[in-house]
Structure formats: C-alpha cells, structure tokens
C-alpha cells in the first residue's frame, strides 16, 4: 500500500494510484445538455486529471444514444458514475460536485 503521508497531493498521488495495476474503468451516464450532466462531465474530468492522470479509461454515455446499455447497467437516475474497476463496482448519483464522495468510491485516500 503506498505511503501517502510522504507525498503531496495531486501529481504524486496519481503516480502511486494503480502502479502496475489495471487502469480505473469509469462509466458516466448523462443525458443531453442538462445542467447536472454537463457539471458531471466537467467534474469527473477534473478529478481524473488531478488524481488519476493517465491511469483511467472514461466512457461518457448519453442514454439517448445507448438506452440498451442503460438497461443492462440497471440505471435508474441520471447522471450516475459507475466505477467498473477496481472491483467491487460502485455508483454515485448526481453531478459529482462533491469530490470527497467521488474519491471515496474511487477508493482514493488523501493524506
């Protein structure tokens, strides 16, 4: 387990996340240009750039284009972020403005 106490936020945390492991796999379900969907896109981008750097794969799925995926994933509320990897799968509903909650479901502990 990386020793976060010895490292600063941001870049160094990103370097220690998932070293030698598979990337984070994230799916964000949105709908059109609704305000919360737009905010969710911008917020997840910020968090990924700050804490995950290149250790992630993000798919942003508009349910208009892929209602079948929404059915498979049992989506009820939009926007919703699904963390497919690392397991277990976790979800967070809403515009992702609460970064602490997002980091919690990403299993990222800040020093």
């Amino acid at each position, binding site marked *: 387990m990386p020793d976060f106490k010895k490292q600063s936020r941001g870049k160094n945390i990103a370097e220690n996340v998932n070293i030698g492991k598979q990337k984070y796999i994230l799916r964000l379900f*949105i709908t059109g240009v609704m305000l919360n969907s737009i905010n969710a896109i911008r917020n997840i981008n910020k968090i990924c750039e700050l804490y995950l750097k290149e250790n992630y794969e993000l*798919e942003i799925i508009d349910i208009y284009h892929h209602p079948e995926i929404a059915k498979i994933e049992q989506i009820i509320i*939009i926007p919703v972020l699904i963390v497919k990897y690392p397991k277990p799968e976790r979800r967070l509903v809403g515009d992702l403005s609460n970064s602490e909650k997002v980091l919690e479901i990403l299993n990222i502990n800040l020093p």
Partner: protein
Amino acid sequence: MNNDITDLLNQTKKLFNDKDELFLKLHEAIIGIKNGNVDAVFVPGEKGEKGLKLNDGDQTYRNFIENMSEGVVMLHADGTIIYSNLSFAKMVNLPIEKVLGKNMRHFIPSTDIETFERLIDGYPVDHSKVDIISLNVNGIETHFIVSLNKLKIHNFTALNCVWTDVTIQKQTEAALTSAYHACKNEVEDLKLAQKKLTLLYNTLKEDIHNTRR
C-alpha cells in the same frame, strides 16, 4: 422435505437481499431528486426503456439535430465537448462515448489551432462566425466549414459548432487548380511552337522568293 425447506429459505433470503438492494437504489434516487442534482429517471416500459427527463421539452429538437448529416458539437467555454451528435463522432472516427468529455483542441491539428482559437474567442454571445478548419482523423486531415454560435445556456456561455465536411470540394478545387495550371503551361508551349512555325514559314517563303529571282 429438508431440501424443500432449504430452497425456500434460500429464495426468501435472495428476495430480502434484492429488496434491500432495490431499497438502496430507490433511496439514492429519491435523495438525488430532492437535492435537484439529477436530470432524468430511467424506467422500464412495456415497449422498451424510457428516459423521463425531469426538466424537458427539447426532445423534438434533439431528434432533429441527431439526424443531421452535419456534425454538431456543443462546447463549454474551455473547449470541453459537452454534447456531440453521431455525425460528428463519425467524422472523427470515434465512438461517441470517447468524444464526449474530450477537449475540442484534441481533434484540431497544430496548423489550425490558431484559427480555432480566433474562432472561439473575442466575440459576443448570440453572434456567430464561420471559418474553414481541418480535423485530424487518424493522421489524415479533413476539411470542414465550421459555423460557430455563442449562446447562454443554464449559467454559462456555450459554443455551438456545426461542422460541414468540404473535403471533397477541397480536393476538387485542388484538382481543378492543378488542371488549370497544366492547361496554362500547354497553351504557353503551343504559343511558342506557333511562333517558331511562323518564323520557319517566313524564312522558307523568303528563300523561295530569292530562288525564283
């Protein structure tokens, strides 16, 4: 008998677990709706799943834009693609899930970045601009007329871009220009040849005249 009881117990346990899971999902959904930070509820229907938007009215326009052959993207002021129709995703040869959230600059070659920055900067809301920009698609530059409109949505300024592929027109223009220059060179060569022939004719005519004397 014991097996039946065990099966029944297992089924009951599964039902309780499913109920708990569903309760959690619904609880989260209700909290989300109450807090106002969700956009839509997605529910199963008899004829397929239906998304119910909590604040809607735009479905007709959405269908219209989605069926356009031109690429349509909406950008946040920082260039993040917050909306794309399928035509634009096809233009850049990516699945649409990989287009949304990217910065528009990711798709523009360095030769046209300055044009793009000029296009998105320095003019007011509700005004539009048009220019020709290339997109870098798998290392191949394709040319587009871009019509850009700045507008206010929700609480920020967005950029609505319509991309019309003019690659074929550009190629035709290049071919016509090349053909024109080739023709022009041929005409010059023919003129030169004609001059030489005229000179030769005059020389021969004079020689014949001198011989007859």
